[in-house]
């Protein structure tokens, strides 16, 4: 907990909050505008609105924001020999990596909540006649949770690459590739690996989703597994640097 708080303190005075506030806001404002201009096609109220608000955000910009957070978090250590302090500290590498990952994940979770609140406000302003489908809320929560592996993966990339921006380009590039792989369904099992993309794409087709509850559970397990692998890789990378 102590390390978690100290990691949080490092980010406290940074400007990391700005993109997290602005990007979801832009997504909701312009998604809503697009919804208004195309109301004759977009007739499914809450479902149509979330496709406008969350499709591009969930597929491309949320991974990029995760990339920014991880890059910033490790960027602080890459600067001014802070990495040497980490490598020589008494705290175990596992704890350091877990604390960093947890902090980024918490901030990301808050930004997802913030986006959802903005979406609810926009939907309320449109005075939809139908209620918000609870399954859609469930899918949103699952899509946010399964993206946890992106936090661990980006954290590993940001630890490996010193540059602030290259990991973010990789995040955006990776999100495109995962869309291609998940959408084409060439290897069915890969939809579980790129689960965040699969869930977002299914939200777009809601209520005709082809994801069962079992699928969602497998996705959560896969995400946890991939996360564990990348946490392990981060610890290994730190150990390698000591040698």
């Amino acid at each position, binding site marked *: 907990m102590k390390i978690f708080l100290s990691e949080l303190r490092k980010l406290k005075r940074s400007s990391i909050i700005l993109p997290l506030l602005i990007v979801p806001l832009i997504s909701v404002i312009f998604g809503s505008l697009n919804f208004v201009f195309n109301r004759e096609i977009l007739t499914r109220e809450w479902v149509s609105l979330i496709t406008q608000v969350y499709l591009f955000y969930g597929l491309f910009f949320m991974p*990029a924001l995760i990339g*920014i957070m991880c890059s910033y978090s490790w960027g602080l250590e890459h600067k001014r020999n802070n990495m040497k302090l980490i490598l020589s500290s008494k705290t175990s590498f596992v704890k350091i990596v877990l604390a960093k990952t947890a902090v980024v994940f918490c901030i990301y979770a808050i930004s997802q909540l913030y986006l959802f609140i903005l979406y609810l406000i926009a939907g309320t302003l449109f005075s939809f006649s139908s209620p918000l489908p609870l399954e859609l809320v469930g899918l949103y929560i699952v899509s946010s949770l399964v993206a946890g592996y992106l936090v661990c993966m980006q954290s590993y990339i940001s630890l490996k690459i010193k540059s602030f921006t290259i990991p973010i380009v990789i995040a955006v*590039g990776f999100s495109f590739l995962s869309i291609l792989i998940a959408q084409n369904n060439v290897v069915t099992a890969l939809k579980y690996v790129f689960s965040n993309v699969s869930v977002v794409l299914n939200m777009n087709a809601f209520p005709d989703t082809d994801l069962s509850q079992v699928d969602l559970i497998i996705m959560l397990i896969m995400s946890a597994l991939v996360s564990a692998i990348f946490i392990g890789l981060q610890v290994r990378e730190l150990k390698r640097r000591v040698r």
Partner: protein
Amino acid sequence: MRTSLLKLEVLKDRGTKDILAALLVTLVSIGFMSVTFFSSDFRSTMDTSEFAWPKLLDNILLMKVIIMPVFIASIAGRSVEIEDAHNMWNLIKSSGVSLQKLYFTKFLYCALKLFIFQIIDWIITLSFIHLGGMTQQAPLLLISTTFVSQLAISYMLLAIHYVLSLKWSNQLISTAISIIGALSGIIFLLLGSKFSSFNPYSWMGHLMTIGTEKTADGWNMYFIDQDPKIFILSLIIGTLILIVGSKLMRSK
């Protein structure tokens, strides 16, 4: 002097992962285009349809709207980050090098790098289309104008992010703006040309040449002329930003 400064830039750039990022940009564009290229609908008409080539180019451009701002911000950021990292600006100043000259040399190096990346990107993409079985002759005029306009827009975006990176040593600002720009760019395109004309981050999308309209039979495609204003405006805005930004070097 400029040649030696350029050589130094090349040396500083060794070992960076820009090549990796550039390859990823190409891979992503090709990947996205492949969805259309290898679809049965497209392949059944690709030898005869006049929309075949423009459709593929439009796919590539749509991806570029999202990915290029981030990639360009990374190139500009990296160039400034190297000097910021160990406060090299002071060292450079004390060695008698004009910071103004360094400012333009660094930008020139970034622009050259971007130019080379874009040439390679197009060679790989066009080869991929050719090897993928496209038999129609490539529309050289359309490809050339798209290439040149894309280069002009990239130049403008590079100038924006280069100046932003110099203004704020925290690269978070420039990168965040690139992401916000990309997001707004794609959304403005969806909102229509009245909106997207005002957002430079949408301009790569303005190079797309196929429009669609809804008719009683479904969606119909039609051609849109590329707007030469984009090319000219990009060059003017980019140059203006670069000149205004050069004043920032005085505070270094």
